[in-house]
């Protein structure tokens, strides 16, 4: 099962950008915290603590903003600029998360924008890469 090559129509972005971004962000941080707690996400939280992140889903017009402290992730309500920003279309983000596509490949092909603290970006990328999904119920969704 591969992610189809689609870009969401602009109308979606213009509607979604007017909706509050908190519910999807809340879902994301809850999932992240669960994964950390269960030891699936081998996060060295000291490396992430105090940092603000933004995942910008370009074609959906959604910005997910969250932050980390020594123990957990939380929704970032502040207006401060993030330390690290990823921006891409939904299909490419999905490919990256499902390991169909390597983030470097997307970056080389200009489908992924990485801005801010590059070392932090590398930590996050390597963190996602090191998750052994075969230990989790999500295994069957992953490409590799």
């Amino acid at each position, binding site marked *: 099962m591969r992610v189809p090559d689609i870009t969401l129509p602009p109308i979606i972005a213009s509607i979604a950008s007017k909706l509050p971004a908190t519910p999807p962000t809340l879902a994301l941080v809850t999932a992240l915290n669960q994964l950390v707690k269960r030891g699936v996400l081998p996060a060295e939280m000291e490396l992430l603590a105090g940092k603000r992140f933004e995942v910008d889903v370009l074609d959906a017009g959604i910005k997910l903003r969250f932050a980390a402290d020594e123990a957990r992730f939380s929704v970032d309500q502040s207006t401060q600029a993030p330390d690290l920003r990823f921006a891409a279309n939904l299909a490419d983000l999905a490919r990256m998360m499902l390991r169909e596509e390597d983030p470097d490949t997307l970056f080389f092909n200009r489908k992924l924008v990485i801005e801010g603290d590059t070392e932090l970006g*590398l930590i996050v990328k390597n963190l996602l890469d090191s998750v052994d999904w075969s230990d989790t119920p999500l295994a069957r969704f992953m490409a*590799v």
Partner: protein
Amino acid sequence: MPKLPELVCPAGSLPALKTAIDHGADAVYMGLKNETNARNFAGLNFDEKSATAGIRYAHDKGRKVLMAINTFAQGVDISRWQRAVDQAADLGVDAVILADLGLMDYASRRHPNLRLHMSVQSSATNYEAVNLARDLFGVQRAVLPRVLTLDQVGHVIRHTDVEIEVFGFGSLCVMVEGRCLLSSYATGESPNTHGVCSPAKFVRWEQNGNTTSARLNDILIDQYGQNEPAGYPTLCKGRFEVQGDTYYALEEPTSLNVLEMLPQIIDIGVSAIKVEGRQRSPAYVAQVAKTLREAIDTAGREMQRFSVKPAWQAALGKLAEGQQQTLGAYNRPWK
């Protein structure tokens, strides 16, 4: 059928290691989470636990694990490098890949049964150097730098019984391998000293409209317009203004790809083909391992009749840095 070279794939994490094995790698190479290896990137590489799990996974499937300890031991305290060798031996890796002669000496004395591979970082380009390493330390394989033509590789092979490994795919590090200091010039850190070229903490990408600027320690390395393929901001691959012209003054950002030459590589008796990219994700490892596995097996079966399948070229092309591929020095006319 001729003896096929081993396919040696990179593993920056446990999932990448498993993926490489599942997609046909004969061996994987990995490093520890410190400056003892040339991909010392934040969050990358193995600790004791993941290394143990990875080695078990590989050995269960009859594949090998090589541990790269391929930076040069720095300063007065080289114990960290020696400890890495001890750790590799304790973990039960199939070989260590070393660059530092002092470390080879240590490894051969302390762990006489540990197989030694000479890293590309050692810059051994002739059979005399390779044979010397064999005589002194019992080195059993040497990885040749990407500066030799295929004829020259064949020449080395004919004059040594040490196994020869060559690079088959990945980003190119174009300068005399193991001796490049460009990254130190901009950042004070380079592969042989800190295990990383152009460390991420010095890299900034700035988005300005559709243009991305890549800076290394504030030095502008390159700018990419809309849809122009991007690369890593290493100095060697930057565009610089030289006498009024802005261009790739040192080297174009290309990737090495030896698909076309596989029959010759097999024919001259290369023992192993290495894939670059421990910093890349499992998705990359999967696609490269699968493609090269198929291509090497096909080349071994068909030899002279072999032709590269467009699908392989497309799969590798997509992954490449710079969107241009080259046979590198292998097919240069120089002698």
